[in-house]
């Protein structure tokens, strides 16, 4: 099954850059609605097996929280609804707070799926392409950290059995931790010499390196990349033509799509936000069908 996670890291990265750009730099309600729908639906579809109620309540909570708190701090806006402690509470402030809350929630949800999708191997692949040295450093670090963790727990256990940590004072605890740290550093330095040997033995010193990865660039990657680029262009045209301009203060005004091309543009944005969900659903249905034939 080729789901969204099976995309090539490059397509994945570009998609997320564009969608985050779209969400963070536009306060137009229609675009926010599109991004919110996209992020929530993709999060749900992707994690439907381990979905908690709080995952779904979270975006709502953030939106309502900002809608409630923003008017407490911001008293701008024309339409005064009522007074609280002699301060005006305006419709614009509530509406702006809500919009900002929706934006924040969508960004957080997009980032959560980004974190799930961008596993370490994809990150190292991206790095390795453009910055081979940094990519190698990242790879070795990723491999070394679990090793150090394990070593540290062994050192800690050893220290305990040597009668360290016998006193309960803060000072003695700090002293023991420092000693553990010193052992760990010595061990790591000693180990890094071995690793360097192992790298050199396999020709790391040689000049001409190539880069290998398990990722293939398939048609769907091209498609996602193309969609991302089109969206980017549309966003630029849109901002140039004031297609998505919106003012919350002093009075809420936004450009409403009028021409058919405007609606097409908004529709495209909506589809683009829903792209991960659509791919996920399409593939699930397709592969469930294939499996049913086994």
């Amino acid at each position, binding site marked *: 099954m080729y789901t969204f996670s099976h995309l090539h890291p490059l397509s994945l990265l570009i998609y997320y850059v564009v969608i985050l750009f779209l969400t963070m730099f536009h306060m137009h309600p229609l675009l926010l609605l599109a991004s919110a729908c996209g992020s929530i639906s993709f999060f749900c579809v992707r994690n439907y097996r381990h979905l908690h109620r709080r995952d779904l309540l979270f975006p709502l909570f953030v939106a309502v929280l900002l809608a409630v708190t923003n008017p407490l701090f911001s008293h701008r806006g024309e339409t005064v609804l009522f007074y609280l402690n002699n301060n005006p509470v305006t419709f614009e402030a509530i509406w702006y707070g809500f919009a900002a809350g929706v934006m924040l929630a969508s960004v957080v949800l997009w980032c959560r799926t980004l974190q799930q999708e961008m596993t370490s191997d994809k990150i190292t692949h991206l790095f390795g392409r453009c910055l081979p040295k940094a990519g190698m450093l990242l790879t070795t670090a990723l491999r070394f950290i679990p090793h150090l963790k394990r070593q540290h727990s062994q050192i800690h256990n050893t220290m305990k059995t040597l009668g360290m940590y016998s006193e309960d004072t803060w000072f003695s605890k700090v002293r023991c931790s420092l000693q553990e740290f010193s052992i760990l550093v010595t061990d790591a330095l000693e*180990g890094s010499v071995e690793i360097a040997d192992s790298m050199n033995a396999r020709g790391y010193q040689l000049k001409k390196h190539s880069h290998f990865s398990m990722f293939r660039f398939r048609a769907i990657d091209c498609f996602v990349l193309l969609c991302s680029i089109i969206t980017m262009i549309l966003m630029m045209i849109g901002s140039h033509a004031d297609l998505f301009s919106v003012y919350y203060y002093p009075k809420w005004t936004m450009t409403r799509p009028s021409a058919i091309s405007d609606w097409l543009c908004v529709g495209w944005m909506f589809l683009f936000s829903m792209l991960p969900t659509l791919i996920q659903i399409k593939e699930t249905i397709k592969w469930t069908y294939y499996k049913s034939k086994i």
Partner: protein
Amino acid sequence: MDILQIEDLTFTYPQADKPVLNHFSLNVKQGDFIVLCGVSGCGKTTLLRLIKKQLAPNGNTEGTIFYRGTPISELDLKRSACEIGFVRQDPDLQIVTDRVWHELAFGLENMGFDTQTIRRRVGEMACFFGIDNWFRKRTDALSGGQKQLLNLASVMVMQPELLLLDEPTSQLDPIAAADFIATLQKLNRELGLTVILVEHRLEEVFSIADKVCLMEQGRVLFYDSPGQVGSLLTQTSPAHPMTGSLPSAARIFNGLCAGGWPSGAEECPLTVRDGRFFLSGHFHSDTAVTNRSDDLPKGNPAAELSAVWFRYDKDGPDILEDLSLTIYEGEFFALLGGNGSGKSTLINVLTGISKAYHGSIRFFGRPMKSYRKAELFLQNLAVLPQNPHFMFIHDRIREDYEQMCETMQLSQQEAAKEIARVSELLQISSILDSHPYDVSGGELQRAALGKILLLKPRLLLLDEPTKGMDAHAKSVLGRHLQQMQQHGVTIFLVTHDVEFAAYYATRCGLLFDRQITSIGNPVTFFADNNFYTTAANRMARRLFPQAITCEDVIKRCRAQMHTTKKESL
């Protein structure tokens, strides 16, 4: 054709007065499987590193090493990286990347191959080594045996002609080690790969080698077929420290030769099968019971575990299940068990680092809970961990000892006396002022043992103390442990090492399926087992079911030789 020619090689490390390699010459034929052995410090590792250009140590080199006619110093770096593979001891510290597939591709990336070539080579290598199932795993999720296999595979993708291995199995458990050696043999037989293997566990590798090179003080002592080396070693120097490392069959044969058996009449047996054939051809059955005491110890219990249950996670599987065990004061208890059977976990449970969720543990009659925080570890219980490096904080071993004496609240005079006593007991006075990373594995372990002896323990727990040690270091350790036992220290060790347990323990137990399944004195314990027993016992069990060590077998054979001599007179 010779793939490797070493001509009159002398190598001296900087600031050393004696050369490590002294007029060393050796020719290796293409496709040979060579085992290189010798006592620790005889220059095996230095020799291997000199062959691999990238790893050659600094120092003064005289003489030349030719690889296919080209001197190593003039060899192209790329050719050296590709054609000469090198695998080292520690499985953990050779892995460079975080994913298995990336590790396999690493060398090929450095060679600048294109993606298609790398994909194909990595694929075929993964198939050959049976890595397919864990191909996409993270490297830190692998077991020790898998890691070492990965190290071998990621060298093999470069398609080397010559493979150098420096004690590759010393950190592995016996089953993983046997797997690894079998893979090496397969590579040698099926691909015609030339292998030079430095090894001190000779039981398995001796019989599969084409030639054995025995080194002594930087020279070649013998370079011949394994059987010949076995016989030659006994004929020329029967007390050589390497005789202890020979396969059990060869040791028994040599023991008999030393006792008057006409040596040279027969080829020295190397495997259990040959040894068995040899014994049954010349000796008759003798079922007499050995004089090793058969009764169980009747001291006070040093540690009692009753109905202990342990698991790491709430929802995880039980590691120990309803385990009960009593260790008596003054005994030397060896707990055997396979990999992952929970032996190390049991040690952690005993020390309280891992808490059993059911069951009680008592030390010297008192429940574990009644000991205050560190009271248990001062003068009662001491642990020797698998990695003794972790026990040393300071730059000199002596400083660590002094700190330990401070913990014990000894005065300076008392401390000096204690340190002198311990270092004399363990014969480590000469290394007290060295850095812990500068001494050999066996010495470091003795130093670690010394450190915990300063705590005056009554019960000593050891976790795999013989890991990575050669036969000589093992026998030194075994003797020291026996000495401590005579001084009244109770010893409990967990190990894979069947031979070590058979030689030194007074009681053995087997941990299997989360419980202790069998327990008894070594003779009955091993005589009752069919597979999980020493090589000597497997060889002689038809004739002498009660003989479990090489010495036992030799003693009984010699007794028969005497009687036949008397009869013939």
